[in-house]
């Protein structure tokens, strides 16, 4: 297989796509968001439970390609226990990381392996909407 693409899909992404974090419906959610990509039909429901300013619990359910699923899974995992403002910082970081027009190198932005795995998305602008689907949606409640 092609190395460039393999880099994108490498272990982190495949791992999350195959074994997503907190997949399922969260019964006592405070926020439910639907991340939907009309171009490809990918669709994820995100469930968040806020207590005050803090995201106490998260889950998601839906359907999409490996990249959108993994990126949603990473989001759901990373949000856990974060405050609104912390979550905001995280989302900005992730979007910068995958932005092909970003001038900063991925490694200068973070050392988190889960995040860095998505940096290769920069080379695949057509997959950008897969990688940022859930993250862009989350912005709406932050």
């Amino acid at each position: 297989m092609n190395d460039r693409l393999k880099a994108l899909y490498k272990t982190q992404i495949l791992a999350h796509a195959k074994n997503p974090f907190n997949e399922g419906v969260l019964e006592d959610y405070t926020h439910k968001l639907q991340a939907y990509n009309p171009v490809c039909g990918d669709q994820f429901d995100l469930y968040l439970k806020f207590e005050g300013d803090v995201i106490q619990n998260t889950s998601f359910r839906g359907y999409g390609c490996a990249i959108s699923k993994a990126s949603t899974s990473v989001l759901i995992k990373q949000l856990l226990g974060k405050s609104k403002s912390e979550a905001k910082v995280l989302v900005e970081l992730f979007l910068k990381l995958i932005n092909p027009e970003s001038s900063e190198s991925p490694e200068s932005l973070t050392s988190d392996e889960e995040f860095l795995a998505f940096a290769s998305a920069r080379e695949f602008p057509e997959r950008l909407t897969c990688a940022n689907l859930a993250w862009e949606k989350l912005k709406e409640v932050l």
Partner: protein
Amino acid sequence: MQSLKSEFPIFETARKEGRPLIFLDNASTTQKPQCVINAVTGFYAGYYANVGRGLYWPATAASFNYDQAREKVRAFIGASSKKEVIFTSGTTDAVNKVVNSFLLPQLEKGDEVLVSEMEHHSNFVPWQQACQSKGAKLKVIPLDAGLNLDLSKFAAMLTDKVKILAITAISNTLGVKNDLKSIINLAHQHNIKVFVDAAQLPLSEKINVQNMDCDFLAFSGHKVFGPTGIGILYGKQALLEKMSPLAYGGGMVQQVSIDKTMMADLPAKHEAGTPNIAGTIGLAAAIDFINSVGVEEIGRHGAELRKYAVKRLSEIEGLTLFAKDAKSTAILSFTMEGIHPHDIAAFLAEKGIAVRAGHHCTYPLMQKLDIAGTVRVSFNIYNSEEEVDLLKNTLVEIRSFFL
């Protein structure tokens, strides 16, 4: 067929990281032979002008070629008169215009419109929205287990409430071809007009609208080696004469006063504004090209490649083929267990193999199949069995990478 590939410059010039383009997305759009590109360039560089009213050269040359293009389309679809050939900007444009000018003025609450479960959004949503705006009912002809139109259910839907049947000739997702002649015959027995979405038909078999006896038929130039932004609407002369104009503006009037407009005769009546002249000239060149190869030849090659692909892809474990036994078309859809169509398409693209993944603008069909999408491969004259072999081998690699 392979020798024809050299007539398509994209396969010479285009390399993605050294790899040649293997274009298996022909149901979406087709590559352009040099003769079509030359026809467009030759017009712009050699005799460009507006059509219809100029007394000078190059206006006369442009008008002559525009008129010739209409004649070529007429012959291509076997219409009896050039008056029955209306240029549009594509299939979708043609559907919308027939909905607006033919259906809507007569549609009333309680009326029905028939479409099928395999329609492309372009031949589904316009009819659906028209029905909703008038309180009419959109009825959807279901598919049977083999993913063919359920003809007995269809027969039961034919009532005198039905104002029009809009049906595709070939499913752009499944490659299933409908038996239009008997479908139209049945519909006509109930005085139902039939609109044929022929977007996928022209490279599959020779069209003859008189023999088919459809009331309307449309296709797009870009799917038959022609330019983008051009398409045709065929309509029976009596219908086109009775209908109000598809659009209003320059070129379609006889006389305009502040109170009144007298419309021009066919076909001008239905063509308002400066047409896509370069588009018609390119389409004419595409038709010449098709005729020089032979529609039957093109159709046979595509169908053979589909058959070969069915055989080779069947060897892959966990791969599901849809409408496996559909005949004489060049379109094939499949899914692979546990791997999303987009991931498959992305990996194929890295090998230079262009396929389409998704719903293919056929959401209702996806709902029927209960899937979010398929991978679709569709063949044309520049494709070969070797390319199918490469497709197969790459799919095997993908499977082992993901699973």
